[in-house]
């Protein structure tokens, strides 16, 4: 039995999964309650006791969000390539293989188009469980294509981020995805089409410092950790204690970095109303 599943984010932070599996039950590591698993699932993977928003897969996210039967996936077969022949303690090739096997995805992103309460939008959703949602060439390419499709189809673009940052195994190529995606968004802006960035737990590094912070509207899920540098790196650099709630969604809202915090169950409704208000033709 796994008590604590620890992921190492690409920025080196240890990301403790808060939902600890416990047979038919799960323990919410945020409030400590042991809850019936089915109940958590029915509640969109939000703790029914303390409202903690657990991480969810890209597929579940899309299911919650998109009108039934309207999602059309794009670029599902775009695959990562180990262009640098990168090897740390493990080969990048092997990391790709095992992540693909576990997730059933080619890389850390699912993208496509769909209707949100009847509003058409291009969607790009991170899969955090795939190498910590790190951004390499595939993620950058899929976001860029989603944005370009938004321009071609004259509809808005929504990106759900959940990522430790750039994928080190693709080194400078992953850094360049920041420029590539931001350049595409400049064109979307020029075309007068809306881009909504939804930041979920956690969104860090090169992802935050590019498309995630470029939304016409930026929405966060409750308590999501969002920042440039990881909290541990900052604490080591400045050698002082970080303020309470540092880099959490509530902290970002207070400091003017995001527009609002929206609970998962209200996300679909909020997004569709926003899209309508930004794209509706005036009489």
């Amino acid at each position, binding site marked *: 039995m796994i008590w604590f599943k620890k992921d190492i984010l690409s920025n080196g932070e240890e990301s403790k999964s808060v939902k600890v599996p416990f047979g038919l039950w799960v323990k919410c590591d945020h409030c400590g309650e042991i809850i019936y698993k089915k109940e958590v699932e029915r509640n969109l993977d939000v703790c029914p006791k303390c409202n903690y928003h657990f991480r969810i897969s890209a597929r579940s996210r899309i299911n919650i969000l998109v009108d039934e039967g309207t999602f059309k996936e794009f670029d599902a077969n775009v695959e990562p390539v180990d262009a640098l022949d990168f090897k740390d303690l493990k080969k990048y090739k092997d990391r790709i293989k095992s992540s693909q096997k576990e997730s059933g995805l080619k890389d850390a992103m699912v993208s496509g188009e769909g209707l949100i309460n009847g509003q058409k939008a291009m969607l790009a959703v991170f899969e955090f469980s795939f190498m910590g949602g790190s951004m390499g060439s595939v993620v950058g390419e899929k976001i860029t294509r989603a944005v370009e499709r938004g321009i071609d189809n004259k509809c808005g673009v929504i990106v759900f981020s959940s990522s430790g940052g*750039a994928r080190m195994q693709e080194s400078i*190529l992953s850094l360049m995805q920041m420029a*590539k995606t931001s*350049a595409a968004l400049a064109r979307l802006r020029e075309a007068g089409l809306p881009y909504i960035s939804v930041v979920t737990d956690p969104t860090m590094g090169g992802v935050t410092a590019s498309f995630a912070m470029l939304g016409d509207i930026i929405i966060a899920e409750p308590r999501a950790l969002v920042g440039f540098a990881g909290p541990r790196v900052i604490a080591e650099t400045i050698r002082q204690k970080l303020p309470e709630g540092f880099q959490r969604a509530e902290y970002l809202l207070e400091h003017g970095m995001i527009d609002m915090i929206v609970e998962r169950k209200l996300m679909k409704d909020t997004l569709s109303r926003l899209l309508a208000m930004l794209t509706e033709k005036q009489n």
Partner: protein
Amino acid sequence: MYRHWLEFEKPVEEIEKKIEELRSYQTEGGSRTADEIAKLEKKAKNLLKEVYAKLTPSQVTQVARHPDRPYTMDYIQNMFEDFIELHGDRCFKDDPAIVGGVARLDGQPVVVMGQQKGRNTKEKVYRNFGMPHPEGYRKALRLMRLAERFNRPVFTFIDTPGAYPGIGAEERGQSEAIATNLMVMSSLKVPIITTVIGEGGSGGALAIGVADRVLMLEFSTYSVISPEGCAAILWKDGSKADLAAKALKIDAAELLKLGVIDKIVKEPVGGAHRDPQTAYKSLKTVLISQLKELNVHTREDLVELRYNKFRNMGVFSEPKRY
């Protein structure tokens, strides 16, 4: 004599020491000592050339961070004329980790900017070791928009370990500042030429690096994370930085192969710090010729070409689409 010798330069240092020694009693030795000195000088120069011809990635990192290496302000003052420094982001403060202003290159008015490191302890702290806060990036952005408004080419110089990781930096939107620069630079309607002169540290470097031409000095580095940081995360051991430097492919030759940079600018034998005047002169020549090439394009074409350049970055595979 250089005050700062690097570990791998030891054999050259030994010879240089010998030369110093001979010089100190040359008056007694006469022409025999003079011959000896000339011979040793030639030997030292050849050895230096040999050592620098086959630097490992982690050795290049050491040269890129060399304490005597010319910094942004040195390049600005020695390659441009009539530099007038401009300050502040008009929001919060002036960030000394990024300098910039207007100047002339070969008589032509231009806008220049770059990260600035400090030479001594006091200066290092003042410049925050070349690690900008959001204000620095917003100052850079303001200068780029100024350049666009007055139709002046932009020259940026990259030399930073990275954007500063601090509480204030996060609170005031380090991510937003970097992201906005990436977006605005991608569609700025004037030529942009970037030169990596030392350390190109991640997003904090790229934030002034979305350019029509990205040049790198021969012994500079550019990477998504420092070798030390990468080693600490992937090898779980910061002392494995040598391995990380190699794996990350951070030197100019590798980056040229990956298509991320456009040109390598040769440095004097043993690095720019050994002969700064030659380094300034050769970079200046390249900058002038690169600008001339870019000026051929209309502003609209320039933006289109820049978009395509970055649009095509990345390597992935995909079954043929029909």
